[in-house]
């Protein structure tokens, strides 16, 4: 199936996103909010989302946690086991910027740092979406998923404000 372009493959995933939940040492809050998105009040299955239990079946990795050193090799292995194209949604302050423990001795401090390690291991992530929140609300996770799948446009952008004197 190599002849299909990436955008075409992503379009197929848009119709049937299967997600795998990868916890790299988070506090559980984001993890239960991820589960919450599947339950009646939010019901992510409306979008065809299905929570799968093996990274081999997954299209989208829901990534939580600041990546502890102990879980690092396992996280890399899980990402390697995911077939291309891989989409990754980094959920929560920990995964996005390291959260409260962005500089502690036993964590890597967020997905951007992990990405450097992934480059060394030659693992490519085709698309990444960052979802801040501590924990990210179920709505925020759905919003992030929609953004990853290309249903909606991004709302935030880098803002530079000047004080009145300038």
């Amino acid at each position, binding site marked *: 199936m190599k002849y299909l372009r990436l955008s075409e493959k992503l379009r197929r995933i848009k119709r049937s996103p299967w997600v795998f939940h990868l916890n790299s040492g988070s506090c559980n809050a984001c993890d239960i909010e991820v589960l919450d998105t599947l339950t009646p009040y939010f019901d992510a299955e409306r979008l065809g989302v299905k929570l799968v239990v093996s990274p081999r079946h997954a299209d989208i990795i829901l990534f939580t946690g600041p990546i502890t050193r102990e879980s690092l090799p396992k996280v890399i292995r899980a990402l390697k086991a995911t077939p291309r194209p891989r989409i990754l949604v980094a959920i929560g302050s920990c995964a996005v910027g390291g959260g409260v423990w962005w500089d502690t001795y036993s964590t890597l401090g967020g997905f951007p740092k992990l990405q450097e390690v992934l480059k060394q291991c030659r693992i490519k992530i085709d698309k990444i979406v960052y979802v801040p929140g501590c924990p990210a609300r179920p709505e925020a996770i759905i919003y992030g998923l929609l953004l990853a799948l290309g249903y909606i446009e991004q709302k935030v952008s880098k803002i530079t404000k000047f004080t009145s*004197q300038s």
Partner: protein
Amino acid sequence: MQLSRVIKPVKLLLIALKTGRVSREKYPLGPPLITDSFRGAISIDPVKCRGCGACVLICPPNALTLRFEGEKAILEYFKGRCIFCGMCADVCPVQAITVTREFELAAVEVEDLKEEIVHVMSKCIMCGRPFETITQLKYVKELKLITEKYMNMCPECRSKRVAKLFAMKPGEIFEIK
């Protein structure tokens, strides 16, 4: 007894029927399930902010940082590390920080999650080094804590000058360059 054991599980269908779909309009088609007291991302009012750094000190994850680049003092807010505790809004002396209910913050680039407030620094009239934001100085001026002459000096020059004043002979005049 036996019969009720068989029938009870089927009661689930009744519960499902009675409940229906818990909320018809679900996010993103409907409004999010948030209450008035929800704490989302903060918004910093650049007009009110004086760059005093009280929020930077209290922020548990250091999502708010203050850095100095030449003549500018930049207060940076990184939403990706924010834990949405709202302590910064509590400690802000001028209520420049308000907690909004914004949660749709997803972005494809980490840089998009950053927000910067650029303050221009006032230069010391003695040594020419930038030492304090102009807005903060203006506030100090309003309070009339010190005279304008001293206000435009950096703390080091100020203390040097005071020391010098004590060492001066009566009648000598100190010139500000």
